[in-house]
């Protein structure tokens, strides 16, 4: 009996991970589904109101605004990061001592604690003694109140994300450039294709799966934006930068303690992110890029 147990490889090797993930995500999610049907608000007792919370969220303009700005933010930063990253990768593609140094240092922003990155930028952006306004004042611009003004708050938040995450697509694309088959490029050159033509008709199409993967990874990660908003704007000015994670946090446990309502929005956001992940895995499977 015991021998049979230890011979079941699936149970031994995958059992723990499946049990662990089930316990810490599936149970909470089921529990969340239940509270999302109640009007639970701390410290009041909870009563079932069925789909009242969902109805409220789906008819609340702020919720839809939040969905829209979160998707727009994620889309904008991932596209910009892929574009800029491609440029940086091309700069790094020719081997040199400088390129090696830059490549090593490019990983620094990605590993920094996001809360620290946000605080660091908050200081750089400071309207009264930040260096950014000082540098701009030298050429006669500013001063700007970067993250507290409607006109500049989105660029300010996006800039932080670009600073921290452009290195990721840059390094990913660089490794893709290294793995391109050289003979195709040589024969194209023999056939008279110039550098620009080789780039547009060979490099980009060959890297297409990698670019797609980099975009999807960045997009799904950027959707989680929370730390930057928490440190810099707290959703402000007004509710202008109240992205989904922060919206759920504020209504659920950060400010109003409407646990039931927060849970219902969590369910909706989970469905959104699960749908996007499913799409992601399927796209990658078509490109034969994933095991899953």
């Amino acid at each position, binding site marked *: 009996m015991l021998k049979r147990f230890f011979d079941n490889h699936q149970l031994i*090797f995958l059992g723990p991970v499946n049990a662990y993930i089930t316990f810490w995500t599936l149970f909470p999610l089921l529990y969340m589904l239940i509270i999302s049907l109640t009007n639970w608000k701390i410290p009041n007792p909870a009563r079932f109101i069925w789909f009242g919370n969902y109805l409220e969220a789906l008819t609340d303009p702020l919720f839809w605004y939040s969905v829209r700005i979160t998707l727009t933010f994620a889309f904008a930063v991932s596209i910009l990061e892929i574009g800029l990253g491609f440029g940086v990768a091309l700069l790094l593609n020719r081997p040199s001592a400088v390129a090696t140094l830059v490549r090593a240092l490019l*990983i620094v922003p990605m590993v920094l604690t996001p809360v620290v990155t946000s605080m660091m930028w908050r200081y*750089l952006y400071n309207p009264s003694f930040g260096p950014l306004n000082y540098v701009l004042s030298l050429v006669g611009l500013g001063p700007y109140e970067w993250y507290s003004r409607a006109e500049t708050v989105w660029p300010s938040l996006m800039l932080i994300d670009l600073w921290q995450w452009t290195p990721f697509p840059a390094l990913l694309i660089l490794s893709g450039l290294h793995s391109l088959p050289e003979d195709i490029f040589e024969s194209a050159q023999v056939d008279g294709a110039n550098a620009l033509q080789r780039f547009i008709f060979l490099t980009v199409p060959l890297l297409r799966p990698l670019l797609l993967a980099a975009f999807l990874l960045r997009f799904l990660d950027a959707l989680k934006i929370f730390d930057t908003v928490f440190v810099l704007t707290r959703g402000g000015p007004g509710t202008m930068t109240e992205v989904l994670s922060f919206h759920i946090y504020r209504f659920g446990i950060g400010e109003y303690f409407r646990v039931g309502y927060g849970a219902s929005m969590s369910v909706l956001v989970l469905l959104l992110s699960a749908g996007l992940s499913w799409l992601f895995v399927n796209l990658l499977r078509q490109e034969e890029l994933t095991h899953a």
Partner: protein
Amino acid sequence: MPRFWRKVLAAALVNLGLALVLLWTLFPVFWLFLTSIKSEADAFVYPPKLVFTPTFDAYYKVFSDETGSNWPRFWLNSTSVALLSTLIALLIGVPAAYGLTRFQFKNSRATLFSILSVRFMPPIVVVIPLLFMMRTLKLVDNILGLSFIHAVFALPFIIWIMLGFFASVPRDLADAALVDGTSELGALFRVVLPVVRPGLIAAALFAMLLSWNEFPIALVLTGEAAKTIPVAATTLIAERTIHWDRVAATGMIAIIPTVLFALLIQRHLIRGLAAGIVK
């Protein structure tokens, strides 16, 4: 233009571009460092000072109790949670990754998909039910409780990093150990793991990095007792006057280990971040 000069010009432009990239990447961190060694008064001067008398006052303050908060404890908390969550995730994730590379299971794909879903799940989404679940389990504001959750989010990365390493180990190695009478699990621990030690180190450092940097879950699940550094750091900017020298010093100490780790696992870092993609 003659060929030679065109080449020189191209090289000069590439290097200029790289110099700009370098400046852009390092300037914010450099400024953080400068601020951390300024006196409180110098941190508030306009125009910003580049020449000043350096001082380590701010570092002293963020390690002592005089600010009214228990900073030594928060540093210890962050370290403990990083180590504990990594240990848990390695114990569960490494055998899983090995099993997935060595056997063709019925539900391999389902397992991989559920692991990937965790990778893309916004943490804030599960944090509300987790808070109440943890309350039932008496694990709110508890280092072990937070470690359990950080381990969940480290698992996808550990598994994906290890998949790559296990795939490069020849099957015969474990097969030979099986002939000698060990079990599959025994073969993994005695024969295969020593071969993939670099992978284990990379996976472990990656998981520690994730836990050390994590904010939203720690924010909701901890109070004073198990508070981690990112959460404690945000209390510094919630005060009416922000002591920027202290903020900068805290930031510097928080990021020094992350940069060291990153330089150690440079090559595997991108692979880990790209978890889900196999090349």
